[in-house]
């Protein structure tokens, strides 16, 4: 009996997949990122004896438990939908990727135990704090392992290994696995940092007690350091990731960078520009409340904000007048009209490298001011709106980047679920599939 090719009426099964997995990653990445930030905070609480670090870490523990239920419900639903809507693809994927998925299941069990244990043992292990910190870091490492295993799946679909599908090592270390994993590791921390900053801003704006205002003001600053600090590394690592996509799946690269989906990177540069400008504007505002006044440093950060805005605008200029062809957003002849300052080389390289360097400069100055401390609880409403803006923008960035990675497999006709191997209609293609089995030569036969 052939397996039916089911469709979800109206929206189609691709939208079902997008809805489930995008919703999942928004929570899963937050949990993975927060379990790097929270144990570090708890340990800093031990080292500095400042209670705000412990308060933050415990709050993050409560949040993680609440988030974990939602974060784990969606992938269960996702697997159910994969089996139902993509039975041929999923049976192949399950077969090829058995070991990473098997390990994934065990990571999941480990997380359930450790996330809850970390929170539940907060008071009982109050006198064995360092051991408790270790428990937190173990949870973080388990989460890193978990997303590493699922990154094998994600990267394999775009760039299947150049060896047989039964070669477990080659499947795991497929061409884009390592750069994707680095990109996700840094991205998760940055994402969680910005969301912490956004949440803190909301609570700060609603706080009336002095103690709460001081705490949430600090928490916004703490989240922003993680968010902005790590996002500055992303363009460099993202460049490495794109380079490996170009080397191993040129059609996908052309589709997302030069083809009809290149507008997604326009969207990304808008997001990156907003996050960078809002973060440095926040730092500039905060420097007004430095315990040790630093007017010269503030002027330098003001200059950095100007340069950052300039580089962000440079990154925004599209390569040609065809911006979003899918909705007819084109002008002056569309693709034929090349725009000045729009080419990747040298303008976008200048823009991206400039953004990173100026951002690092501003962050370094801000961290220097942090060493002497700030007067907490005096931040303006606008500075908190800047934090909220970074939080909303980082969510949009995650959604955009997730869409980029998945839609890249449409780059080569007719569009693939596993690039070059299984089409979107679940037709298995042998010819040209790098992981297709090759004939094993008989012993003694000439090869």
């Amino acid at each position: 009996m052939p397996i039916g090719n089911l469709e979800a009426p109206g929206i189609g099964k691709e939208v079902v997949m997008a809805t489930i997995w995008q919703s999942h990653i928004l929570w899963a990445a937050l949990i993975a990122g927060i379990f790097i930030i929270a144990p570090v905070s708890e340990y800093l609480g031990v080292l500095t004896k400042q209670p705000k670090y412990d308060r933050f870490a415990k709050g993050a523990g409560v949040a993680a438990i609440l988030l974990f239920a939602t974060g784990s419900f969606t992938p269960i639903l996702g697997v159910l939908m994969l089996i139902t809507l993509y039975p041929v693809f999923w049976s192949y994927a399950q077969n090829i990727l058995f070991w990473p998925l098997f390990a994934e299941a065990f990571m999941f069990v480990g997380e359930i135990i450790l996330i809850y244990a970390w929170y539940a043992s907060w008071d009982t292990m109050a006198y064995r704090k360092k051991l408790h910190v270790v428990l937190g870091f173990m949870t973080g490492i388990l989460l890193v392992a978990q997303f590493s295993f699922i990154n094998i799946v994600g990267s394999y679909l775009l760039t299947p290994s150049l060896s047989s599908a039964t070669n477990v090592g080659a499947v795991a270390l497929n061409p884009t696995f390592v750069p994707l994993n680095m990109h996700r590791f840094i991205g998760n921390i940055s994402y969680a940092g910005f969301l912490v900053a956004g949440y803190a801003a909301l609570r700060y704006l609603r706080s009336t007690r002095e103690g709460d205002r001081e705490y949430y003001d600090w928490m916004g600053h703490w989240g922003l350091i993680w968010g902005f600090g790590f996002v500055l590394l992303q363009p460099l690592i993202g460049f490495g990731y794109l380079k490996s996509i170009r080397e191993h799946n040129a059609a996908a690269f052309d589709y997302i960078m030069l083809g009809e989906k290149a507008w997604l990177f326009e969207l990304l540069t808008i997001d990156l520009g907003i996050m960078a400008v809002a973060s440095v504007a926040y730092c500039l505002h905060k420097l007004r409340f430095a315990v040790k006044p630093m007017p010269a440093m503030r002027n330098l950060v003001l200059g950095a904000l100007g340069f950052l805005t300039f580089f962000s605008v440079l990154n925004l200029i599209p390569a040609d007048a065809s911006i979003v062809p899918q909705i007819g957003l084109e002008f002056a002849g569309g693709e034929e009209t090349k725009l000045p300052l729009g080419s990747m080389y040298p303008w976008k390289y200048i823009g991206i490298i400039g953004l990173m360097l100026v951002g690092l400069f501003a962050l370094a100055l801000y961290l220097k001011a942090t060493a002497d401390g700030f007067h907490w609880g005096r931040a303006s409403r606008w500075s908190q709106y800047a934090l909220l803006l970074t939080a909303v923008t980082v969510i949009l960035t995650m959604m955009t980047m997730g869409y980029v990675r998945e839609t890249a497999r449409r780059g080569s006709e007719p569009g693939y679920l596993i690039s070059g191997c299984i089409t979107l209609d679940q037709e298995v293609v042998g010819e040209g599939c790098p992981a297709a089995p090759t004939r094993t030569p008989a012993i003694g036969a000439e090869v």
Partner: protein
Amino acid sequence: MIWELALLPPVARFFAGLFLIVLVAGGSALFIYWISTLYGKEE
């Protein structure tokens, strides 16, 4: 297939997906926020 006839145009599906993601992720965010406000309260 009858299913394919019932599909919305690609751009409409894109925005339907965007709306659904915001609905699911945003809805669960609101739920988590609501349930966190009950944290630590005695009955």
